[in-house]
């Protein structure tokens, strides 16, 4: 039944109730079905406010869904993400799903190198090996070496975003979720990120992302249209 895919979203519904604003309820995702294979990149498209980020956050388990399933292959098992216990979801995030969000939240004074190496260190990788891996990626993304030992709290938007990308790319996650990963980058660095992602894809990494039109030229992808509060579909 699960055939060759790595992620299957089935009949997903997500709404928000704002208790501080008179209990207004609005539905963002209604009956979303999606299938993702290893080595496939799905680019979410749709106007702003249609729920692209919401879908990504649901798949990461950041937002709790109203109903529906998110089946994914974690190690050798298929798990349904909304039904996982907290420590099980943490394990899925540690080993299976990487997420590049639009924000980087860090403890002040922790240097960029350590911030970026954290996912590797939490997996129990040696400090030296983790730092080597992170330094390679920092170099590739043109993050100046003088910044490596400084806290990202003082970095520019583009520099923070690169630290965030390195965090997610330092581990070889089978699934990557990318919420506008290059929004704050200049054309040159944007190109480098897209090349890195395309390399990952060719190695078998499955991705779902929100990208800008120009970027989609550098990665082979299928388009997935999200419509406001209606069933969404592939194009």
């Amino acid at each position, binding site marked *: 039944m699960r055939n060759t895919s790595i992620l299957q979203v089935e009949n997903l519904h997500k709404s928000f109730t704002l208790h501080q604003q008179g209990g207004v309820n609005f539905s963002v995702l209604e009956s979303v079905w999606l299938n993702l294979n290893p080595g496939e990149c799905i680019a979410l498209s749709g106007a702003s406010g249609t729920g692209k980020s919401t879908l990504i956050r649901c798949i990461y388990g950041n*937002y*709790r869904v109203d109903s529906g399933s998110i089946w994914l292959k974690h190690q050798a098992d298929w798990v349904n993400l909304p039904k996982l216990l907290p*420590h099980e979801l*943490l394990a899925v995030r540690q080993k299976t799903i990487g997420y590049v969000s639009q924000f980087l939240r*860090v403890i002040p*004074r922790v240097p960029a190198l350590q911030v970026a190496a954290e996912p590797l260190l939490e997996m129990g990788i040696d400090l030296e090996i983790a730092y080597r891996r992170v330094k390679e990626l920092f170099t590739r993304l043109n993050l100046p070496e003088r910044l490596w030992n400084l806290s990202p709290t003082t970095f520019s938007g583009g520099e923070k975003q690169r630290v965030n990308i390195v965090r997610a790319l330092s581990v070889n996650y089978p699934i990557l979720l990318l919420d506008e990963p290059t929004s704050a980058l200049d054309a040159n660095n944007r190109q480098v990120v897209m090349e890195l992602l395309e390399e990952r894809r060719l190695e078998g990494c499955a991705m779902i992302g929100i990208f800008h039109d120009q970027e989609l030229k550098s990665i082979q992808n299928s388009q997935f249209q999200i419509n406001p509060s209606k069933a969404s579909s592939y194009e």
Partner: protein
Amino acid sequence: MEHLLKINQLSKSYGGISACEDIYFDLYPGQVLGIVGESGSGKSTLLNAIAGHLAVDSGEIIYLDPQGNTHIVNQLPEIKRRWLMRTEWGFVQQNPRNGLLMKVSAGGNIASRLLDVGQRHYGQIRDTATHWLEQVEIDPKRIDDLPGTFSGGMQQRLQLARVLVTQPRLILMDEPTGGLDVSVQARLLDLLRSLVRNFHLSLIIVTHDIGVVRLLSHRLIVMQKGKVVESGLTDQVLDDPQHPYTQLLVSATLTP
């Protein structure tokens, strides 16, 4: 993976006022659990009940020791419970003056916990104390100074060193960053995070500071009027709060 601690239907009331009602959760090794809520929500009562500082009315606090034995902590004889608090568990007070021996030197504070567990070799104890002062980033030259000569942030870190010296598996913390200025707070958070990672330490942190739990805790429990109104991974609760009270709490937080 097996849980380290399991709280079952824990209740505690003061006279007719219920401070904790039917609380349950479990905690796994290497996890940080944050408990947030307004003053009077029962979060400190819960922490003190788990630590055995307060007798509970009903419910169970179940602890799995390293040998795989299960203990119902709130039914242990007093002497065994105290032993647990001195060895495998630790408690960090909101006010470091309550968690330190103020008339004993910094080194003596650390040593006293080692003496409690039967260490007698003076040289070794001093070396160990020095090591833990370094771990919490206190200059070992201050080993013979009284805690009263330390700043608030240093006292808090000394209190932590005193608890860490027996290499506990679980530390309960009541507002550990309260009253610290932000740069000292960041330093303490960074320290706690590396301790959790390097020693697979589990923490329960009671705080009203959403920023602290956002950066430190894996999981979050939100309490209101003695009840758990919402729980989940920290980012779930803070980014997608469901309960009206949690939404109020999150919307009232200043995000830098």
